[in-house]
């Protein structure tokens, strides 16, 4: 009881400000404020104008690859909006980033993603700092190091939206999973790193292991045991004068269980095994301290092999047919970014998905999905940037299988306060 009273007095103290008057001298002696972790808050707002209205847009997708890319999709009870989901103003997020050493052996980092949908723990992991020999272990909720941009947060991207191939294969958050990661940097004069990850495997677009159940919790389609996603990669880099070349090869393999039972016209569940291959290449030429040219390309290819359980639209607990299905899909993005000085940055991006071979399921699906983007950014300082972006999206199809060209203009404000953010390459 005493404790509760004391705590409430303390809380009142915080609320009314002057804590120093409330706490006696000896209590302040044990002040721990010096141990407060590095804190920063990053907010992202955008103004979006599209040539297709929101209602119509939610019915567009990439046949055989992704449903309703722009819709707020509800899965397993959690609502997750894509960035820049609505026409007009969007509050994309306020990200609270905390980071500190734990003890001489570990550090801890967390990224809490606040948005209109609530709070999501985007990342919360501990990392070893004392193993040496190039070895580093990490555990918790993390962004996989698969490919180049998967491990980067939205605020570090050069465009306000994700590359088409990433978004349609893996969703807006990429491979963002609970799991463990081991990385080893080789004792070579050039950069060479290899890593493996064991992940829970709950990606909505490509992986999953949860059984498909009826109303009583009885499994209709049996899932698998987690963890069920395994990732491995090798990355290397070297410099030629002021030019840095960075390349990587990645592989992910896991069980898939994709629940599309809420699809009104064509409810189905896919269960099977999926493989994802990735190759990335980044060439950065530094002209001087502030000016550079960066060319960044990533290629993704996936193979999904399993069974498509087509459900009865009037009773989604009954399976009508269950054909075997095999999907081979590949795409890439390539972008060129020119940083003029501390204030101005501009770039173009080309997105494509050029392979969409499906046997056993939807026949005659298109296999030419393209998107073109251009952007210009103004930075008032390292902590605030404003970006104007234009997208021409020729990858979206309506439910009748007709291509719908989509033009988007986007004005984005990305503002950071608090601890100085230092980004890795």
């Amino acid at each position, binding site marked *: 009881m005493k404790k509760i009273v004391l705590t409430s007095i303390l809380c009142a103290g915080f609320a009314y400000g002057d804590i120093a008057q409330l706490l006696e001298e000896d209590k302040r002696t044990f002040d721990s404020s010096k141990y407060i972790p590095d804190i920063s808050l990053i907010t992202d707002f955008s103004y979006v104008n599209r040539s297709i209205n929101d209602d119509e847009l939610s019915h567009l997708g990439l046949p055989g690859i992704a449903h309703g890319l722009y819709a707020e999709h509800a899965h397993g009870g959690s609502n997750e909006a894509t960035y820049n989901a609505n026409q007009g103003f969007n509050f994309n997020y306020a990200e609270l980033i905390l980071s500190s050493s734990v003890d001489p052996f570990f550090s801890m980092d967390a990224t809490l993603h606040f948005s209109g949908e609530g709070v999501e723990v985007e990342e919360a992991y501990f990392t070893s*700092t004392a193993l040496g020999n190039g070895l580093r272990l990490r555990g918790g909720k993390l962004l996989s190091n698969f490919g180049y941009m998967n491990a980067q947060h939205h605020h570090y991207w050069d465009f306000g939206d994700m590359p088409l191939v990433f978004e349609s294969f893996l969703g807006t958050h990429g491979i963002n999973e609970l799991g463990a990661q081991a990385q080893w940097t080789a004792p070579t004069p050039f950069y060479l790193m290899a890593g493996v990850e064991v992940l829970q495997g709950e990606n909505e677009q490509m992986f999953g292991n949860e059984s498909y159940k009826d109303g009583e919790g009885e499994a209709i389609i049996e899932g698998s045991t987690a963890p069920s996603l395994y990732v491995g990669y090798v990355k290397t880099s070297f410099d030629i004068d002021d030019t*840095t070349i960075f390349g990587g090869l990645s592989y992910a393999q896991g069980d898939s269980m994709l629940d599309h039972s809420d699809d009104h016209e064509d409810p189905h569940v896919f269960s099977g095994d999926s493989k994802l291959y990735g190759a990335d290449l980044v060439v950065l030429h530094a002209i001087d301290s*502030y000016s550079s040219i960066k060319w960044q390309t990533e290629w993704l290819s996936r193979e999904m092999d399993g069974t498509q359980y087509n459900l009865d639209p009037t009773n989604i607990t009954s399976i009508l047919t269950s054909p075997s299905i095999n999907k081979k899909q590949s795409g890439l993005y390539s972008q060129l970014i020119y940083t003029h000085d501390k204030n101005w940055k501009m770039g173009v991006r080309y997105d494509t998905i050029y392979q969409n071979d499906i046997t056993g399921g939807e026949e005659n699906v298109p296999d030419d999905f393209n998107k073109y983007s251009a952007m210009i950014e103004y930075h008032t300082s390292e902590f605030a940037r404003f970006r104007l972006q234009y997208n021409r999206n020729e990858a979206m199809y309506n439910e009748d299988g007709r291509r719908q060209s989509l033009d988007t203009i986007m004005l984005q404000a990305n503002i950071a306060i608090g601890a100085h953010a230092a980004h890795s390459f």
Partner: protein
Amino acid sequence: MRHILSKMKKILSLLTLLPLSLLAHLNIAVSYPYIGALTKTIGGDDVTVTVLAKGNWDPHFIIPRPSLISKMRNADGLIMNGAQLEIGWLPPIINRAGNPKTMPNSKTFLNLSHHAKLINKPKSVDRKHGDIHPDGNPHFHLSPKNILILAKTVEKYLSNIDQDNKDIYKKNYANFSKVWKQKMLFWKKKMKDKKGLKVIQFHDNLAYFNREYGLNNIGTIEPLPGIPPSSRHTIEIINLIKKEKPCCILHDVYHSTKTADFISQKSGIKVILMPHDIQSLENIDNLSALFDHLTSAIK
């Protein structure tokens, strides 16, 4: 449990000590070329130095190239400038390398700013005043006096992690200090008639140099630290120059001199390029050459 813990501690400390005692040859990573030169001077043949940043780059903005991770991973220690000069690029490299010998607060990690007396410490820290350094001006190496203090710091650091060679480090320091003190007298003489001169800079890089030789910085071309020049502030500077009559604009090598040239044209005062580190200009390949150049630059 306690027994296992103490055993683990022993193994851990053994693991960290082993490479040091086995290999007399130390590989020390340093952030900037001037630290490399100091470390090489004191370390001599017993120390290899790996410099991370290039001397002609803005020390605040270094691209965190992955090759730097490998250099950090393979190092036996790290010496950095500190005072937040490396905050935008070094932390991710240290983290990615995961090398306990280059982690802050390890015995083999040295933050030079903790051993120099920093000036211009801001009274209040707020980014509306620009990208300021809360601990004070971090460009403390541009003072021959401080170079001597830093050399002593490096000597202590090397002796501490490699006690077998501490006599060599002591001797190297003594030799360096003797020569350096003579040079300091020479530079002082050269700068004697410059005392009291007013100067303009792009960014207050030369705060310690100016203080040592009695130069008086009256304004900077950037309106606030880290904020690029604005036309309004440029006009203010031109008016200030007309009123205060400074001798010249002392300009760093990495910012564009476009605004400085414009100011020079309007006000008639010279723009002088001032190197901030070794390699920042072609002919500057050692510490003496750096100060020889700096003390001869103002004619």
